[in-house]
């Protein structure tokens, strides 16, 4: 019922944010803070790894969309790593799958930002 956030610098200006747990109205502010802190430091290319996320709702989507909007202002982008069908379904239903890059692995997501 909680969220764990791990941030790892892949290369200058590109970080991998690994999320684990549940992203809901209670935990999404923590994700927002972590993503916001990265952008404030000038990291405009983000891979967000959702492989260990068991649950995401509209507040989580809102945080991802907000992050994407901010990095785009600096020419950056966000790639998601996600294979969980239940979570992919939510990105499908909302049409967000067309806005984010969605990949099956971290290397694929990193490559897409190259």
């Amino acid at each position: 019922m909680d969220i764990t956030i791990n941030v790892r610098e892949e290369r200058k200006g590109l970080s991998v944010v690994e999320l684990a747990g549940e992203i809901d109205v209670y935990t999404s502010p923590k994700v927002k803070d972590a993503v916001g802190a990265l952008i404030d430091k000038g990291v405009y290319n983000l891979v967000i790894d959702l492989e260990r996320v068991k649950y995401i709702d509209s507040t989580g989507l809102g945080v991802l969309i907000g992050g994407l909007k901010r990095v785009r202002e600096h020419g950056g982008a966000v790639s998601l790593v996600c294979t969980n069908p239940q979570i992919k379904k939510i990105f499908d239903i909302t049409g967000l799958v067309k806005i984010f890059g969605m990949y099956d692995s971290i290397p694929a997501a990193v490559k897409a930002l190259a």
Partner: protein
Amino acid sequence: MTASNGESRDSVVVRIPRKAEWVAVARLAVAAVAIRLHFSYEEIEDLKLAVAEACTHAIRTETGETITVECEPFEDSLRVRIGTDDAEHEHDHADDIGLFLIRSLMDDVTYGRSGEILMTKRITT
């Protein structure tokens, strides 16, 4: 009004403070009801998300101290009613991703006059 057939059997009611930290409790309680009714895994995930969205909506746009989630099981479906203890204000059901997800994931959704959301999910066996 709903897509359900048959008499309601028993209802399960969960009341939480209208605060973000308790939404997970409502979500899990409804999931437990749905497991008992033999919804599929995917249907249970849909229900959890819809309940969370309705609670999030109540936290963001409604007022009041508590959120009440009432689960009414029918033969072939579960009806969930989500509302607050304060019905004395203007209700905003302006569309956002949350309400859109509820409508996408549930079989029938109506917005009550007092700000509540009434939603039904059918059991597909």
